[in-house]
């Protein structure tokens, strides 16, 4: 009748497949759960269902600019951030100067994208735990961000908007007004989210003290982004290794404090994201102030991008953590080698460590709280 584990010593263990088609694995992830009743004895993530050979394909494309739309498709929830890291890498390879207006516009877009990504992550997390309505409330807000993106870039999800040393299309005239409107309308929604979800006792019960990731373990696994900050480590590349123009802005790094349970539990990871949205709003406000109204959106760049011999690693803070691009150039039109360091992949690797001894329902909470995107895990 049921498959009993032959490998384990105890024959009351049960192996069950969670995914690849499961509502709360956030894509095509397959988790092999070894269960004792509902207790998790072991989790074995199986990945690769969404593998699209990003790295190999980038080397085959014969053009650095052609790779940009492919970076969108890694973490499709935060495509702007993926492009940002990549164009920064190319700009550094070519030693290009980026116009001021573009830098500001990029920061605004990237921070908006961070909010959009967190909205999706938080909403889906609530959905995993059974709260359906917050998901749709947050999606309403996300739609507003996507409207701004669509107005300027033309697309809603996979933008291909950042070009080397510029933007693919000029910004619309009312860009600043749209963003300012969004910022004012979004603040009360964070409060509503806190009331509806964050401090809901059932939600707290489901997330506090669950999947505790101590700071030391997080560092050992090379965690980054909200997952690391949730464990109480104030590490944010925008502050610790500033790129673009992030050194000009004043913002805080929210960290997990163990307000509802232990430092580094699911609730902390979740709440760091909520607080980060607030900080992103602050950055956007400052950027709106500093952004020049006039100016080019495209610097003069060589027609054919042929960087000189060399290699470099550029890391940026994507909504999920440290997104790094390693590019090795051999003077040709195509990169000799591109390697993308995907935070989701790194974070997924610690799932077995933190979900041992949890219940099935906790695995759902843990997977939701580390907020992986399978497009990025598999690339």
């Amino acid at each position, binding site marked *: 009748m049921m498959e009993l584990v032959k490998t384990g010593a105890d024959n009351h263990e049960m192996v*069950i497949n969670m995914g690849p088609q499961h*509502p709360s694995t956030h894509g095509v992830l397959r988790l092999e759960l070894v269960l004792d009743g509902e207790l998790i004895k072991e989790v074995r993530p199986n990945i690769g269902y969404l593998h699209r050979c990003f790295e190999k394909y980038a080397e085959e494309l014969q053009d650095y600019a052609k790779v940009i739309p492919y970076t969108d498709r890694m973490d499709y929830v935060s495509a702007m951030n993926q492009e940002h890291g990549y164009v920064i890498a190319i700009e550094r390879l070519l030693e290009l100067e980026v116009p001021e207006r573009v830098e500001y516009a990029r920061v605004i877009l990237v921070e908006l994208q961070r909010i959009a990504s967190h909205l999706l992550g938080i909403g889906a997390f609530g959905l995993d735990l*059974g*709260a*359906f309505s917050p998901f749709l409330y947050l999606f309403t807000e996300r739609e507003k961000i996507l409207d701004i993106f669509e107005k300027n870039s033309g697309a809603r999800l996979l933008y291909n908007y950042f070009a080397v040393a510029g933007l693919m299309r000029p910004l619309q005239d009312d860009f600043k007004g749209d963003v300012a409107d969004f910022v004012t309308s979004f603040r009360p929604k964070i409060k509503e989210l806190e009331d509806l979800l964050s401090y*809901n006792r*059932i939600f707290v019960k*489901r997330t506090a003290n669950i999947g505790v990731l101590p700071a030391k373990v997080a560092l050992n696994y090379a965690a980054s982004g909200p997952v690391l900050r949730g464990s109480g480590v104030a590490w944010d590349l925008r502050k610790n290794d500033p790129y673009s123009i992030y050194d000009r802005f004043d913002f805080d790094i929210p960290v997990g404090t163990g307000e509802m349970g232990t430092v580094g539990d699911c609730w902390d990871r979740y709440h760091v994201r909520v607080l980060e949205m607030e900080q992103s709003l602050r950055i956007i406000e400052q950027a709106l102030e500093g952004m020049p109204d006039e100016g080019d959106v495209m610097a003069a760049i060589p027609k054919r991008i042929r960087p000189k011999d060399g290699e470099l690693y550029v890391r940026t803070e994507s909504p999920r953590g440290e997104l790094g691009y390693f590019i090795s150039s051999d003077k040709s039109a195509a990169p000799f080698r591109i390697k993308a360091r995907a935070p989701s992949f790194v974070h997924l690797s610690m799932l077995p460590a933190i979900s041992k001894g949890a219940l099935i329902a906790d695995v759902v909470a843990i997977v939701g709280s580390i907020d992986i995107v399978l497009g990025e895990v598999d690339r």
Partner: protein
Amino acid sequence: MNETLSSMPFLPALLLHAAIPLTIILVYALVAIWAERKVAGFIQDRLGPMRVGGWHGWAQSIADLLKLIQKEDIIPADASRFWFKFAPFMMFAASYAAFAVIPFSSGYIGSMVNIGVFYLLAVTSVLTLSVIMGGWASNNKWSLLGAMRSAAQMVSYEVPTIATVLTVVLVAGSLNLMEITELQSGNDTLGFLPNWLIFQNPFLITAFIMFFISILAESHRVPFDLPESESELVAGYQTEYSGMRWAMFMLAEYADMLLLSLLGATLFFGGWNSPFGDFLAGPFWGFFWFMLKGLVLVFVMMWIRWTLPRYRVDQLMAICWNILIPLSFVNLVLAALWEMIF
């Protein structure tokens, strides 16, 4: 109506008796499934189904039903065929049978047995078994997990349900739901309030809260919808079901929800009694008031469902065994003391 029925020949009377609750359940289920989606839609700033039937998609459930009837009846290859086919019918039969003792109006009750409440609880306990049966027979691990959760949950929550119902029975002094309802007619509590039991004894208010929590769990509603929690167990014991058999499960779920809400309305809110004394009273209006009270409770259940996350299975059990069961028994004793003193 009961008088008319008793004067009829046996078999037609029997069929009519059987048909009345069935009609109510079927109509209610169609409306409730549509209403559930509309409530969900409005809560989430959407509109819900809008396309079938004109005004606000009122015919959506009918269209769904027609679709489900036509669908292929898929039975997994390694399923235990007989029990797999049997479980949905048994589940529906159990919740349908329980309607026999619900006093729909002053003129109609299916069976005037003296052990009404007790019979109702006994029959609904069969629901648990059909859930296990469906989950086990599907030969799917997720289904089995859902079935086990469901069994544990329903067996546990039966205890606080029975304890709170017992509190009402103690105050009312009868197990017959019709008698309990008749006891609550009139409008003289504190001069203006209806004589509903919930206003009669302060411990019945706490009893109602506990009763409501228990029936949420008994009818698998959020935050206690663990047996079918779609984001964890996919759909729990219903995973392998499709078409008409799945529809039977849904029908039984919704019937169960109505049944327990109506039980709550009978026990605590005066059943078919009008809230305005003699105004708008009588058998027909009695039915109207009774269904209204039940549906308000159903609506609150829907509202809760679209607001809250769900508990984890061990927390669910902890709530039951650590809080509800002791509290409901303490409440029972206190209510009894109150009755003795006043």
